[in-house]
C-alpha cells in the first residue's frame, strides 16, 4: 500500500516534470530578447578585468615565495616545537599548490603588503621582519580589531559559531573554543591574502566558476586546486591559532 502510493506519486511527479520541461522548452523557443536585454545579459557575463593581468612569471613567484615565508616565520614565532615538522611540511605543500594555481590561471604572482616587493630582501633581516610585522599587525587590525562588535559578528559568526560549537562538544573550554575559532577564521583570511593578494583571489574564484573559462580549460582541475588550497590554509590557520 505504502509502496503503491509512492509509485503513484512518482508517476504524477513525472507527468508534472515533463509538463514543466515542455513549458520551459516552449518559452525558450519563443523567447526573443530585445537588443537591450541581450546587451544587459552580455554585460553581466563580460569579463571586464580580463586584460588587467600579466602572465605568470617564475622569477616573480620565487621572490614572492621568499617574502611569504618571512610572513610565516613571523606568524609561527611562538609555535610549539612538536608541531614544527608538520607545519613545515604543510607549508611546503600549500605553496606548491599556490604555484600551481598561479600557473593554471596564468597570472603574475604578487606580494602582499603595501610598498612590499622583492627589493625589500636587499635590506637587513631585522628591517624586513619589522616591515612585515607592521603589515601583519595592520592587516589583523583591519580585519578584526578596528571593526565594531556588530560588524565582527556579521563577518565571522557564520564560520566561528559552528567551529566553536564543535570544539565545545568535544569537551573543550567554551571561552577558549570561541577565542580559538575567531583567531583561526581571521588567520585563514590573512593567509589567503598573503598567498593571493589584492584581486588575485577574486580572479582565481571567478575563473573557477566562469563558464567561458570552463569551455576551454580544465576547470575541474582548477576547482580541485582551489579546494585543496582552502583545506591547507584552514589547517595552517588552526596551527597558527594555537601559537598566536
Amino acid at each position, binding site marked *: 500500500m505504502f509502496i503503491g502510493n509512492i509509485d503513484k506519486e512518482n508517476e504524477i511527479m513525472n507527468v508534472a516534470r515533463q509538463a514543466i520541461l515542455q513549458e520551459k522548452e516552449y518559452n525558450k523557443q519563443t523567447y526573443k530578447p530585445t537588443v537591450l536585454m541581450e546587451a544587459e545579459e552580455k554585460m553581466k557575463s563580460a*569579463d571586464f578585468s*580580463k*586584460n588587467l*593581468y*600579466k*602572465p*605568470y612569471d617564475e622569477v616573480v613567484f620565487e621572490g614572492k615565495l621568499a617574502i611569504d615565508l618571512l610572513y610565516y616565520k613571523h606568524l609561527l614565532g611562538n609555535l610549539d616545537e612538536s608541531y614544527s615538522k608538520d607545519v613545515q611540511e604543510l607549508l611546503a605543500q600549500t605553496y606548491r599548490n599556490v604555484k600551481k594555481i598561479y*600557473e*593554471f*590561471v*596564468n*597570472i603574475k604572482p604578487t606580494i602582499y603588503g603595501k610598498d612590499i616587493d622583492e627589493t625589500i630582501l636587499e635590506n637587513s633581516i631585522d628591517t624586513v621582519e619589522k616591515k612585515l610585522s607592521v603589515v601583519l599587525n595592520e592587516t589583523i587590525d583591519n580585519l578584526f580589531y578596528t571593526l565594531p562588535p556588530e560588524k565582527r559578528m556579521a563577518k565571522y559568526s557564520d564560520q566561528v559559531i559552528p567551529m566553536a560549537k564543535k570544539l565545545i562538544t568535544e569537551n573543550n573550554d567554551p571561552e577558549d573554543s570561541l577565542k580559538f575559532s575567531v583567531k583561526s577564521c581571521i588567520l585563514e583570511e590573512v593567509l589567503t591574502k598573503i598567498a593571493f593578494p589584492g584581486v588575485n583571489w577574486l580572479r582565481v574564484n571567478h575563473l573557477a566558476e566562469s563558464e*567561458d*573559462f570552463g*569551455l*576551454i*580549460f*580544465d576547470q575541474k*582541475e*582548477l576547482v580541485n586546486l582551489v579546494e585543496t588550497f582552502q583545506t591547507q590554509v584552514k589547517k595552517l590557520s588552526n596551527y597558527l591559532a594555537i601559537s598566536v
Partner: protein
Amino acid sequence: MSSIKKLFDSKILPQLENKKMEMKVYTEMTKIISAAYSHNVSSDESFCFKFNLPIVAVNNFYKILNLDPTEVGKAFKKDWGQVLTAMHKDSYYQILLLFIYYGITEKKEMFAKNALMILLLKIWNGRKSKFFKYCDKRIMKYVIGNMLTNRHLLSKYENPVALLRDYFTPSILKKYGPEVKKDIKKLQRLFEQTFARIFQIFAFNFRSNIRTGKKEAQGGLLPLYMKAREDGLHLSVPSTRRNAGDDTSVGYEEYSTTHNRDKIVTKTTDYIILNKSTKYPINFVSTINRKTNVSVKIIEQILDYINIQKNYDVVQNLIVLILSRCDIHTDSDICSKDFNKNIRKNIISSKNNDEINKIQRLLDFILDDFFKTKLKTRFNKYSNVHKIKIRNVIIYALEYNLFKVNCRGGN
C-alpha cells in the same frame, strides 16, 4: 659564313623545326624559370637573393639536341676571336644564345625570352657574388626601401626574378633583337650588353679613391649598401641567423641553407595539411594538457582544425617564422636535443618582437575562426594571458610535426 650560323643552320635549326623537339626544349626552359620564380618568391632575401643555377638542366639541352659542347665552343671561338673571357667560353651561355637566336629569327618571342631569362639567372648570380659575397638582407632592404628614389629601377621591382623577367628580358630583346636578326655576329653584342646592364645594377662609375688608391664604384647598389652598413642602418626583418649584420662572422655556406629551410617548410606544411586524419598520440595530447591546462577535448579539436586546407598559407607562414626565429636551417637543427628548448626560449617564452607579434597574429587568425565555427563563441572573449595558453597548443602541434616529419620521416 659565320661559324655559329653554320652550326645553327646545320645542327640546331633542323631539329627545332620539329615541333615536338621545339616544345620539349621550350617546356624544359619553362620548368627552369618556374622553379627559379617560386624559389625567389618564397624567399625574403630581397636583392641579396641568389638563384639555384640550373646547370644540369641547361647542359641537358646539349644531350636533347645531340650537340657536342666542344664543337659549339669552337664555333663561338672562331667567330668571336681568340681573346675571350671564361664567360664567353661558358657552354651554359652558348647554348642559350643559340636558343635566343632561334627565337628571334623564327619569331618565337617566348622561346627567346625564356632562353634569355635563364641566361640572366647566371649573370645575376655571378655579379651578386662578386659584389656581395656576404649580403645582409636587412641592410639590402633598407637600401631598397630608403636610399633609392621611387624612379630607380630596383624600387619598381620586388625581387630579382621580377626585375629580370619583367624588365631586362623584354628590354634587351627589344633593343638588340633586330640587329641580331640581321647578323648573328651581333649575338656577342647582345650577350655583352646583357652582362653590362646587370653589372650596372650593382656598381658603375668607378673612380680612384685618393686615400686608398683603389677604384671604387660611385653608383649602383654596392656604394649604397656599404654606406648603410657603415652607418649601421638596416630594416628589422626575420633573420636567417643570429647577430645578423655582423657580416664578417658568418660563412657564405649559411646562405645556401635558405633552400634547405624552404624544403623543411614545404615538407612539413604539406604533411600537416594533407594528413587530415592524423591522430596525435595520447601522451602528446596529455603533455599539452599539462603544459597549457587547455582541456583534452579542446586540444583535440584544435589539432584537427589546423589540418584543414584553408589553413595552408597560415601554417606555412607560421613554420617559416618559427624556423627563422629559432635560427633553424637544416633537419639536424630540428632533430637536435635542444630543439624543444629552442622553441620554448625563442617562441613560447619570447615576447614583444616583430616575429613573435607576427606569429601571434597568425595564430589568432586560426583561433578566431576555430572559436567562431567550432565553439560558436569568440576567441577575443578570453584574456590575453589565457590566449597565450591557447596559442601554445598550436605551437606545440607545429613543433611536434616539424620533429615528426623531418626526423622520423612522418612516421
